[in-house]
């Protein structure tokens, strides 16, 4: 490809003045300003994190302490449980977004009225301030007076105490995450389903395939790229989620809804910068460990 640019610059050499001809029309320095900002404020901190996580650190001076931060991280249940909660949170949210996003997309691409309205209504929460959503649902999920439990009472169900129940807190936040994010999954799936040629469905219908078979054998396999996007996007988003959890529970009650990102913030607030950064590195590795095999797996399957 680089030879193409070379050929272009040589061809008209007779008619044009010579100095401008020397350089490529695509100079590498175009990448420089953006590249420098990205390097200084994203790459350098990411690489330095590995060193700082091995130190007792106050921003001004640091003392090398080896793997002590990591040892402490995995020894203290309050910290290491954050790792488990992060996984539960990411898997729950992305699983629900896949299933509900697919269901809503099938509904909205089917023979139905009010499609535009429903798509807009489901998508809008994606754009709303996560803190605003978190604070609103904190009120809606009030154990006794909250609108959700009041509504459940009407149909004879006693709702859980949501955010104040240690067994429910993390799941409650995950549900709100799904409420806010399912609109994006839905539009990704809608784009995937609408790109499937209509003749496939027609032909299957001719052959007598029912709605379930058409979904199972046409929509589901051919919308796979959309599924891959939704899974990757929501897993990566779920693993690093902070704002919603912080707005709703601050990791409580106790540490029952603490995730990696909130542990990192709490340790930072407490002045344990080395420990906080160690948590950051653990999160880092967790994301790589989960995202990389998925990338590899999905790409490999696509090639065949």
């Amino acid at each position, binding site marked *: *490809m680089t030879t*193409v640019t070379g050929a*272009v*610059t040589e*061809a008209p050499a007779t008619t044009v003045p010579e100095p401008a001809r020397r350089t*490529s*029309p*695509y*100079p*590498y320095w*175009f990448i420089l300003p*953006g*590249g420098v*900002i*990205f390097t*200084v*404020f*994203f*790459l*350098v*901190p*990411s690489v*330095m*994190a590995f060193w*700082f996580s091995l130190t007792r650190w106050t921003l001004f001076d640091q003392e090398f302490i080896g793997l002590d931060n990591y040892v402490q991280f995995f020894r203290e249940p309050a910290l290491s449980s954050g790792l488990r909660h992060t996984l539960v949170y990411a898997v729950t949210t992305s699983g629900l977004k896949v299933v509900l996003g697919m269901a809503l997309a099938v509904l909205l*691409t089917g*023979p*139905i*009225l009010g499609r535009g309205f429903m798509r807009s*209504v489901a998508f*809008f929460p994606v*754009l*709303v*301030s*996560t*803190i*605003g959503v978190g604070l*609103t*649902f904190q009120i*809606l999920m009030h154990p006794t*007076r909250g*609108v959700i439990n009041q509504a459940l009472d009407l149909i004879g169900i006693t709702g859980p105490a949501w955010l104040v129940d240690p067994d429910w807190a993390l799941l409650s936040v995950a549900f709100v995450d799904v409420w806010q994010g399912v609109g994006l999954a839905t*539009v990704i799936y809608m*784009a995937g389903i609408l790109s499937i040629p*209509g003749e496939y469905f027609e032909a299957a219908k001719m052959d007598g395939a029912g709605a379930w078979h058409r979904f199972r054998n046409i929509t589901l396999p051919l919308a796979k*790229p*959309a599924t891959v*996007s*939704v899974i990757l996007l929501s897993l*990566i988003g779920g*693993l690093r989620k902070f704002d919603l959890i*912080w707005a709703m529970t601050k990791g409580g009650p106790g540490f029952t809804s603490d995730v990696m*990102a909130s542990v990192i913030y709490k340790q*930072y607030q407490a002045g344990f910068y080395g420990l*906080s*950064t160690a948590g*950051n590195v653990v999160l*880092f590795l967790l*994301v*790589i460990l989960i995202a990389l095999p998925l990338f590899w797996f999905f790409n490999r399957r696509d090639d065949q």
Partner: protein
Amino acid sequence: MSTRPRPNYPLSGLAVVLFGVVFLVPFGFIVLTAGKTAQESALLDFSWPTEWAFVANLQAVVEARDYLLIIAFINSTILTVASVTVVVILAAMAGFVLQRRRSRFTRAANLIILSGLVLPPAVVPTIWVLQRIGLFKTMPGLILVEIAYAMAFCVLLFQAFIAGIPKEMDEAATIDGAGPLSLFFRVVFPLLRPIIVTVVVVQTVFIWNDFTSPLYFLPGDENATVQLTLFNFQGQYASSYNLLFMDILLVTVPPLIMFMIFQRQIVSGMVAGSVKG
């Protein structure tokens, strides 16, 4: 999708009602609570206010703590406008060269860009960098961080779009004597209009709603962004839910306006961005 069967009316009705309840009731709750008096809002119920205190609440929220909310709106606006402007220009330039030149270097660069999309940022070391160059707790520092975090997403979107612009365009312009700068800014940049609109709108919403970066990199009341005031309101007005929800309502209005004007660009941009990633 080509031959659409007769719409299913009962299913449509059911779906519209269900979507309305699930997705609109929370917003209705915000608006209604923002219009209630303090005592009535403390009941936390979903009901029509017996007495509208909308204007009084609006005034109270705006005037609270020496017009902190106004300052926060100004701060958030500066942050969003500056970050988005810079990131659009720099990402378009980088995306242009990265797409047009295919070499070992650009392939490596693309891999690193992908990492920027996937990896969680290392927050405390970023504070260390900001402190070293004297930009910690300053607006320019936060702007640079937002630019860095938005860069990967924007560069990938620009690359995908530029791939659809024929290279013959560049060649024609180059033959006419255009240097790289005028080739890019006079010929290519105007062609990027659709994707620029998408990137601007999506990033504006992202950065406007960003809570974590200001929390870490720009702490302090005098620098508060709107998302932080929202969070702080919760502590200060523990019993004044009407004021809290008025604040939520105000913070939600700018994205709502963006959504109503640019719905198509936002949806397509976020779908394209997620499929790329």
